[in-house]
């Protein structure tokens, strides 16, 4: 078993090397706002959509909509949990040099409205 894991690690290393450019392109194109990057970063499969939405200063509907879209894009994987489905990021943003927004900056005005949602983003969602 240890030998198989070692071989898989070796395979993964080379696949990461070969595919890093494509993956980064998809991540940068898809996660084109700070809010999306934060939601993606927080999607670890343990946190629910409500918790992530609160941290990112948006609604859980938005989080679930992003999850569904990202699943079609192949950058998150679905996990069955009691009462529904959660999503787990397939990639770590840090591995691709993509900056992760600070949560504390985003939750300041989360009770009233999304903290970093720009006018353009609101238009895009409509």
């Amino acid at each position, binding site marked *: 078993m240890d030998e198989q*894991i070692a071989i898989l690690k070796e*395979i*993964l290393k080379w696949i990461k090397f070969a595919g890093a450019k*494509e*993956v980064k392109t*998809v991540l940068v194109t898809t996660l084109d706002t700070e809010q999306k990057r934060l939601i993606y970063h927080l999607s670890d499969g343990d946190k629910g959509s409500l918790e992530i939405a609160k941290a990112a200063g948006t609604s859980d509907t938005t989080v679930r909509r992003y999850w569904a879209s990202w699943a*079609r894009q192949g950058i998150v994987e679905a996990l069955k949990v009691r009462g529904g489905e959660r999503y787990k990021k*397939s990639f770590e943003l840090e591995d691709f040099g993509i900056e992760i927004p600070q949560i504390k900056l985003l939750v300041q005005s989360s009770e009233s409205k999304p903290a970093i949602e720009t006018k353009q983003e609101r238009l895009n969602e409509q």
Partner: protein
Amino acid sequence: MSEMEKLLNDIRAYLRISAAAASKMVAKDTLNTYEKALIYNKLDGKISQVKIEADTGIPQTTISRWLAEFVQAGLASPPDQYNSSHKALFTLQELGIDIGTLKKRAKTSQTIASTSQGLPHIPDTSQQSIIQKTLEPEKRGAENG
């Protein structure tokens, strides 16, 4: 999740994105009409051609030909021991295809064929396809104009 499962998941995630990136060009050429993309989007490995025909109104002979094209292009897998029917290997989103921007085929082409070009109406599907391909530049021109 075991360490081995995690490694396999990571390998799959990287391979899938790399493969999708490599398939974008052929996907653009193959899934070049609304109807083709619509059918590709339905290929979950379970749906039958009869059901696709019922859902879309596209003749089964045409569907069968398109499925063979999808497999040939490396965009779908044929039925096997795990899937009773054809299965799309990617989502349209992974392939960068926006189904809303694709042109519809068949009926529009027939109309153009019989009105703009003065050609006789040909109901046979294979001939429709030939006409559709032949008239594609005129169709684009008409739609743009």
